[in-house]
């Protein structure tokens, strides 16, 4: 079944209990990822998009913990799964690519050591065979003369090459799902295009589904199938990329798209969202976007529920923009 959901997240809540109070970093997120699909998770800093990714992988650090909801991967419940089970899944079935590859690669180990270790953790395979696989993996992500480059240390690679190594490691076991957290944000434009190109190609080849976490709607527009827009720990709008970007229904999504400079007439004032995103300790009552929203009224003092507009288009707003309904 091509449409079968690979990952189903329902009402996920990840909270951080701090001395200043409880931070509801993720507060009721539901999303589906199908096999081979590219899902964009878009939001500004602090919106909970990265914590959503970490929650799926079971990579939360204390005091963060999942306090509610369910994460089902290939039908298996991951919330409450044993650390051993998560370790077996991570890297083999679900892999992650982070923003800064300098933080994910061990600076004192050669690239070959790190890749071979990642292979042998999940498979009983001779080091010689693992080395051949490592070389092939580097070749696949477009690193020239992979056999020599295997001998190098991470600092001998440029930023774009390091990110390629990180992607090669993530794809070693042909995982069903890769979660990429701002993988191109630290890279230059021409290098970003190379990485997006490789990811698109590799995911298409191996049927890997991808959750691409980013603050940049333009990147998602160029590569994604569906998009979820997050604000203050919740998904405020989701749907096919084309629909959401051409006619956003949530006032926040609309504001975000309208404020992109290339969407505005040159030299004119940009349309802007007033105010700033709320801090987790001072969430406004009701809809968290209410103080910045031009359509807010008394109804917005309640928290809006997610409603389906049509098909897959879902929005969390009492007053969605008309033209998209």
């Amino acid at each position, binding site marked *: 079944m091509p449409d079968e959901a690979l990952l189903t997240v329902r009402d996920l809540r990840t909270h951080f209990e701090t001395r200043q109070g409880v931070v509801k970093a993720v507060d009721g997120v539901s999303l589906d990822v199908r096999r081979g699909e590219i899902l964009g998770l878009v939001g500004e800093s602090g919106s909970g998009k990265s914590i959503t990714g970490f929650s799926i992988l079971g990579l939360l650090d204390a005091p963060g913990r999942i306090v509610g909801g369910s994460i089902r991967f290939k039908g298996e419940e991951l919330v409450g799964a044993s650390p051993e089970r998560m370790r077996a899944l991570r890297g083999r079935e679900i892999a992650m690519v982070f923003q800064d590859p300098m933080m994910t690669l061990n600076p004192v180990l050669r690239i070959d050591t790190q890749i071979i270790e990642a292979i042998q953790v999940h498979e009983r395979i001779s080091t010689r065979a693992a080395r051949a696989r490592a070389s092939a993996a580097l070749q696949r992500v477009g690193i020239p003369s992979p056999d020599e480059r295997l001998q190098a240390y991470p600092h001998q690679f440029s930023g774009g090459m390091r990110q390629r190594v990180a992607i090669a490691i993530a794809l070693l076991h042909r995982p069903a799902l890769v979660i990429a957290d701002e993988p191109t944000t630290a890279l230059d*434009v021409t290098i970003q295009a190379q990485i*997006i190109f490789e990811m698109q190609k590799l995911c298409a080849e191996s049927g890997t589904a991808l959750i691409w976490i980013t603050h940049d709607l*333009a990147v998602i527009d160029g590569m994604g199938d569906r998009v979820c827009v997050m604000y203050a720990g919740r998904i405020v709008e989701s749907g096919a990329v*084309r629909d959401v970007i051409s006619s956003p229904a949530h006032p926040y999504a609309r504001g975000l798209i309208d*404020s*992109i*400079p290339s969407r505005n007439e040159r030299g004119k004032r*940009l349309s802007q969202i007033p105010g700033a995103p709320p801090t987790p300790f001072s969430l406004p009552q009701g809809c968290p976007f209410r103080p910045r929203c031009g359509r807010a009224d008394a109804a917005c003092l309640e928290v809006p529920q997610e409603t389906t507009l049509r098909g897959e288009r879902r929005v969390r707003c009492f007053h969605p923009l008309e033209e998209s309904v």
Partner: protein
Amino acid sequence: MTTASAETPILEVRRISKRFARTPDFAERLAGMFGAKFDARVVHAVDDVSLAVKHGEVVGLVGESGCGKSTLGRMVAGIIPKSDGELYFEGAESAMWNAAQAQAAQLAVQIIFQDPMSSLNPRKRVRDIIGEAPLVHGMVARDAIADYVSDLMLKVGLDPGYKRRYPHQFSGGQRQRIGIARALAVKPRFLVCDEAVAALDVSIQAQVLNLFMDLKDAFNLTYLFISHDLGVVRHLSDRVAIMYLGRIVEMAPTTELYATPNHPYTRALLEEVPQVGTGKRIYSVVKGEIPSPLNPPPGCHFHPRCPHAMPKCAIEQPALKQVAPGRFSACHLNDQN
């Protein structure tokens, strides 16, 4: 000394260069006494760049990391000295400045940095951050400074009630506004914005860009707007200069540059910027990496990655030549036809 006419650019650099060389440490100096060779590798951060900015103009300076755009901005702002070349402010060359002119030029050109958290002193209150420089330079009397700071805070969209706060008590966008107010406090005429919105979220970025446009009219400012973001630069700038590995490869009025880019590097940059509204697409890819500025390729710096490279490109450096009125490009392809 001539007075600045309307035609004189407010700021001009001619054939300016910046080289960074490693100085030998003690052991290397010692070894040098015995005849050992010192590996004196030099980074040509900015290599023979000429640029003139007219009064009231916004010039965008675009390039990828390591292309020297920030180094150029800092030389223009007088933060780091130039290695070679000439810098003119309102027609007067920097080598000819007397002390008063030098100070006037220093104050008239201010810079706004990318990361407001590392450019604002975390132990100072906002009123001191903004108010210190005008006080030191005798621009505002001590008893008038409180009102002066309040007024500036209002102009950049900050609540003057927050002036006793410290930088960490503000959000990223507000901190950038503090940095802007600090730059404006000494009544500059020229602002260098070095990736001034790059660290901000999209919705905040739009607010700060609007602020820049409002301030330009209110204070009669001229901008050198340094950014890697082609969308931002297109929106704000009158003219755009594209840098690659220390050199300007193309310079043109904004609309023309974006409509018909001349240099292959500019074309590649414009093609690969992800844009909203294009829909799903396959990225065309410029092969290769940005070379290290320690060891740039000979001839045209872009030739190893250029799809149109000819044998000549590896040998001879193309000069920045006028290809159409007001348009400059440094590419051998323009000589062929």
